[in-house]
């Protein structure tokens, strides 16, 4: 089947979001991209992991600085994935895009895994450096709340059988959870926390030495590509599943009516 013509509105601006909101079209456009994304992700992970162990140890943290190369990207991805989930939920709730709920639902388990990894790796770094596995400070507690939002979102989606109702309820929950993102980001500035402040995204530039910044950035890029690839795979899974359920419902209706 040929792809529908790419539409343009009255002002000749491309309406890419509307055009891609068709699930069938979305699958056709991104299916050929996925293998390249998978390959690029694997290459970046190999390169990033090499740099993680080729970089020098920190004069204060010693070898535990290598934990930062996977802890920080996991934490960034926990936040970024929730933002993606929130934006998708907004489109689903307000504009009723067919694909929006599938996109939000597909992102949730990925975000939950990234956030769980941020918590676990942070704890494993905290024990030798701070002398404690956990501290109820602003940053750590707000990231734990983020993880609970992911779990709540997935539990709510699984508990409501009707897809439309599930989409609406979970979208509202996801939008409420967005409030937590600036709290996480600025928790280290608002409260006196054990967690250190920002050292990469700062107005005056990163304070991390280039030898340690590169492994961090390459790993962050690898985590981003992994997210995009897995997200596309899971959205397509959701589309396939809904198509299957739709066909089954039509068969049941036909058999019931016969």
């Amino acid at each position, binding site marked *: 089947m040929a792809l529908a013509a790419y539409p343009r509105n009255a002002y000749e601006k491309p309406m890419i979001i509307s055009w891609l909101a068709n699930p069938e079209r979305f699958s056709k456009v991104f299916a050929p991209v996925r293998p390249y994304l998978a390959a690029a992700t694997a290459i970046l992970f190999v390169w990033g992991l090499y740099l993680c162990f080729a970089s020098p140890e920190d004069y204060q943290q010693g070898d535990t600085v290598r934990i930062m190369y996977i802890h920080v990207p996991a934490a960034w991805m926990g936040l970024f994935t929730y933002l993606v989930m929130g934006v998708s939920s907004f489109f689903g709730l307000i504009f009723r895009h067919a694909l929006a709920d599938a996109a939000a639902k597909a992102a949730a388990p990925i975000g939950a895994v990234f956030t769980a990894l941020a918590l676990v790796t942070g704890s494993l770094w905290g024990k030798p450096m701070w002398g404690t596995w956990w501290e109820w400070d602003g940053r750590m507690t707000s990231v734990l709340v983020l993880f609970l939002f992911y779990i709540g979102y997935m539990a709510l989606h699984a508990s409501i059988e009707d897809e439309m109702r599930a989409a609406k309820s979970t979208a509202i929950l996801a939008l409420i959870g967005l409030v937590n993102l600036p709290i996480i980001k600025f928790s280290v500035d608002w409260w006196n926390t054990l967690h250190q402040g920002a050292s990469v995204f700062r107005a005056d530039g990163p304070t991390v030495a280039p030898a340690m910044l590169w492994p961090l950035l390459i790993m962050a890029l690898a985590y981003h590509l992994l997210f995009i690839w897995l997200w596309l795979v899971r959205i397509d899974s959701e589309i396939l599943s809904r198509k*299957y359920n739709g066909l089954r419902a039509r068969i049941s209706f036909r058999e019931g009516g016969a």
Partner: protein
Amino acid sequence: MDLDMGKYAFYVWGCYGVSAVALIGLTVLSVVAHRDRAAKLKALQETLAAEKAQKVDA
């Protein structure tokens, strides 16, 4: 490249191990679920197509 983490070996390798298991696990689960769903849909579509062809023949 230095793989000797000294006294921090448990913490460093623990982090990399947990991350590898979680990310590889998530990837495998996502890809397997995608393949299963594609196969289920294809089988159902083929069954429906066969039924439709039978009706046309009849």
